[in-house]
């Protein structure tokens, strides 16, 4: 298990890539990894222009619009049929979806 890189301004190394790969459950090839070191370095050097700015005057805008309280009434609507529910599953043991063995 790779340890966390020391800080956000540190270089993007293969270790950082492996750490992220693990976090994102994303298997990469060696070629992917080495090109990602370069790509992420470039993108982050671009993104770091933001890191140094004092933006404390601005509220964090996580949504496009200032909406609130959009809710629905507590009403039951018809569910999918079992057939629909299993239609796209890669593996089925009707009436269940089947997934590989979970090893803890």
């Amino acid at each position, binding site marked *: 298990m790779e340890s966390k890189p020391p800080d956000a301004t540190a270089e993007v190394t293969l270790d950082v890539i492996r750490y992220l790969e693990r976090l*994102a459950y994303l298997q990469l090839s060696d070629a992917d990894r080495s090109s990602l070191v370069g790509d992420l370095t470039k993108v982050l050097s671009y993104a770091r222009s933001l890191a140094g700015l004092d933006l404390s005057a601005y509220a964090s805008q996580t949504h496009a619009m200032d909406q609130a309280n959009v809710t629905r009434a507590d009403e039951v609507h018809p569910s999918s049929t079992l057939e629909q529910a299993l239609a796209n599953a890669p593996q089925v043991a009707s009436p269940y979806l089947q*997934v590989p063995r979970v090893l803890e």
Partner: protein
Amino acid sequence: MSQEPILSATDLVTRIREGQWTATESTPRHLAIIAQRNSSLNAFVEVWRDEALERAAQLDRKRASGATLGSLFGVPIGIKSNLCVTGHVCSCSSKMLANYRPTYSATVCQRLLDADAILLGRTNMDEYAMGSGTEYSIYGPTRNPHQEVGPNAVSGGYSPGGSSGGSAAAVAGGMVPIALGSDTGGSIRQPAAFCGVYGLKPTYGRVSRFGLVAYASSLDQIGPIATTPDDLELLFQVIEGPDRHDATSLSRETVQQVETKLRHKSVEQLRVGIIREHAEQDLAPTVRRALEETQAYLKSAGATLVEVSLPRQAHAIATYYLIASCEAASNLSRYDGMHFGHRANVPEQNATLEQVIAASRGEGFGAEVKRRIMLGTYALSHGYAEQYYQQATRMRQAIRLDFATAFANVDVLLGPTTPGPAFPIGAHRQDPIAMYLTDQFTVSANLAGLPAISVPIELGKLQSNESRLPVAVQFHAPPCGESRLFSVAKALHERNQTAKLGAVA
């Protein structure tokens, strides 16, 4: 009829409604054009031929029965491959979803059907809408119907832009009069500009996102692509409106309130702000000319032109790529090969669940998608979220306030849609940053939730060494100001018609 030119959606609806044509006559014409041109353009990745013909016959029966006819009656339409239609593959051009068939339809697709449109098929796109060239696709790249002529021509053809390049190319190539795209950072406007057609990114929340496979939820909007502003508006009117399945869709009351405040203005009454930071950028000569000719036209039409500043524009691209990648990394967590989509075949007896999930995602996603998942995971992970994601969301607010300040003084903002015309296919494959920069003028509208339109500009007489590829300008309006954008676009459309006849110097 087969000698008739391809009609706009507006004209087509009129002809069919008036009984001059039938849907059964017109639909095969479009299918024939697709059959003829798609092998080179690769705009459609699937054509729903039989279903379209059956529906056309059904619509003709409906007309014969005297029933009320929908506003897109008999109009064939292309659907971007990230919009769900029950029973049809919705692949997002990804191996991950190559065989995925949704069991429900997107609200917009249902609205098209309710308006009596004919869904002709699905169009190519960049995988999960991440890209600006419609090249990152399991179906291969789409080609721009436009080419340079003479010595400037490239053999591989030009990119239609992306990610809605299939829809833009399908419209520009005469396959369908209108198509739906989605726009997260310019994915409707940039391909519309590259392909010489009109494209609108609506105000965030005006069009329901229910059934649009999410890339970056706070930025994504579905919008129309068309050959005329009238068609653009017609399609927009059908798809817009509140949806109880989308908590971020704007209520009718909100839209009406804002629209009332934005008084309707004719072009001569408009105050047009020229975005200094966009105009100052390094622009291709024909793009610069498009901007100048648009300004000259608007001035001659009586509009007031003022220079305005959006001081934080230099940060827009970084802000956009951070927010979009964070949301993408989150949205794409659902593709684990467990419930739907691609599952890797990991042969080892003792493969852990984690290995199967990681392998499924590793095999299912292409390079650009992986890049953004990695960037988003980095920017959201513990310890970095404050420096990256949080800073980006604050900058987003600053950018939004810049626009609000500008709109206190002007009615619409004018600038280029893209720095240059279409690039040759494959030009940016080695340099993602260069690709990201083609979005530099479009991402701000998504960050601020504003409506923005790309309007193709017919240039006056071109020098022999000048590019023949289409160019466009972009207008931004305040939230819910789509009608202002349509009226400016209609005026420029008239100007374009005149320009085509050589009447503009």
